[in-house]
């Protein structure tokens, strides 16, 4: 049985004057699939994510989310997607509970108080519920960000370096929570990270971006061998330094 297409990107382009931040990329993600979006800084990963979220208008191309045009159904499709990003912290002057409550209202969550209670327990945040988000450690803030990101049980979850600057133990915990969420809900995930071990462990497929273009695509566990590289990290470095040498 074929899986549902949760995200379909066709010919997506973003130009800033003469610069093409994202250059005519196409890809799709099906239900339950975890796709890694890799590339050096400035490759166009965050630009791509921002366009999918609807906070950046593409210069060209189409984005379909759950088979609906994202441009024409922005509010509707955003009810079923969510984001956790290292650069998108929740308001520090609200408590953990208040943050989840405000975003729960925005995402129209039914039985919101019950849902918050569940998430506080799931992410081990119960004891911090009345503390302001700004006083939490970075690990606790990451757990809060992730709790907010799955508040609405999204069918498409965008994770932009969700474990950046976290210690290995917290990173593993975050990855376990995400894996558990995907297994339970069948959500699709687009994941950017500079941690190649993490990508190898979590992603079913990776897309390598360089200068706004998708250069390579494939299984993160077999792709390095296809290009005579020892591992994903070596492949990443090659893409970052000599992208032309890898073009097919």
């Amino acid at each position, binding site marked *: 049985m074929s899986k549902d297409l949760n995200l379909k990107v066709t010919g997506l382009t*973003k130009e*800033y004057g003469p610069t093409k931040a994202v250059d005519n990329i196409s890809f799709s993600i099906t239900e339950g699939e975890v796709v890694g979006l890799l590339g050096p800084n400035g490759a166009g990963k*965050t*630009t791509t994510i*921002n366009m999918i*979220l*609807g*906070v*950046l*208008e593409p210069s060209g191309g189409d984005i379909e989310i759950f088979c609906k045009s994202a441009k024409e159904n922005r*509010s*509707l499709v*955003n*009810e079923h997607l*969510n*984001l956790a*990003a290292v*650069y*998108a*912290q*929740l*308001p*520090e*002057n*609200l*408590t953990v509970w*208040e943050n989840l*409550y*405000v*975003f729960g*209202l*925005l*995402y*129209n969550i039914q039985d919101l108080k019950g849902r918050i209670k569940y998430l506080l327990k799931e992410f081990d945040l119960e004891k911090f519920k009345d503390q*302001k988000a700004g006083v939490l450690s970075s690990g606790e803030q990451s757990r809060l960000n992730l709790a*907010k990101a799955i508040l609405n049980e999204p069918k498409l979850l965008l994770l932009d370096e969700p474990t950046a600057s976290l210690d290995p133990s917290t990173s593993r915990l975050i990855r376990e929570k995400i894996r558990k969420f995907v297994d339970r809900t069948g959500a699709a995930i687009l994941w950017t990270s500079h941690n190649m071990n993490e990508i190898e462990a979590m992603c079913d497929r990776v897309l390598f971006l360089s200068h706004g273009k998708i250069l390579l695509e494939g299984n993160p566990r077999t792709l390095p061998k296809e290009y005579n590289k020892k591992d994903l990290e070596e492949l990443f470095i090659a893409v970052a330094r000599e992208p032309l040498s890898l073009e097919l």
Partner: protein
Amino acid sequence: MKNLKRVYAVFIRQVFLLRGNPIRLVNIFLWLSVDLLLWGFISRYLDTLGKATFSFATVLLGAVILNEFLTRVQQGVMTTFLEDVWSRNFLNFFASPLKIKEYVGGMVVSSIFTSAAGFSVMIMIAGLGFGFNILRIGFYLLPFLIILFLFGATLGILAISIILRFGPSAEWIGWPIPFALSPFMGIFYPVSALPHALQAVARAIPASYVFEGMRKILMTGHFSNDLVPMLLVGSGLALIYLVLMYLIFFKVYRYVLKNGLIGRFGAE
């Protein structure tokens, strides 16, 4: 229902902020109280000079209260927006299903509450401290407040449009907008006191009709029928400006979406 929930989310966020840090109440209550006390004492002093045929306290305090109300509405909208700027919350907010009209709606609802709270405190201070009761304007106070509210919200949306377009540093252009317009609003003097060319500017400002009307009622002690067209023009202008300003804000939002400013707003 979903729309109302999202408007409520924007509003309840402000309530949480006030509850979490009561020092924020200073912005709602303290400065307007100081302003009212200052003008209250000035008018009391002027009344002792005894030459005028009317009570300075009546006219000046009425003007101060209504002007502060207008300013508080503008600042209410602006502060709600700035909270998202200061906490770098744009990406999370605008990546949610929140629509721009719901966001603006939430800011306006927040300012209704903050300006109403401020207004109540001003009535109390004016009554207890200086024996002035603005409620003696009677039923007609309501259309005055509505016009001022609509115009204050318009100025608030103007301020946030400027900030959204030019970045957080443009906040300093936003704060003094009501003050910049105040010479032309006829707050403390009749519009006829302005040079002829500037009277045309004053007539284009909805608030000027309110201050003219208020002065007339307080000085004559009754509502005359010639105030009706003034109120209608004031209301009409306020509504037109509000709609136009919302459209401008929406255009600015589209510009910001196109240029990717939401994701990197703090850097502007």
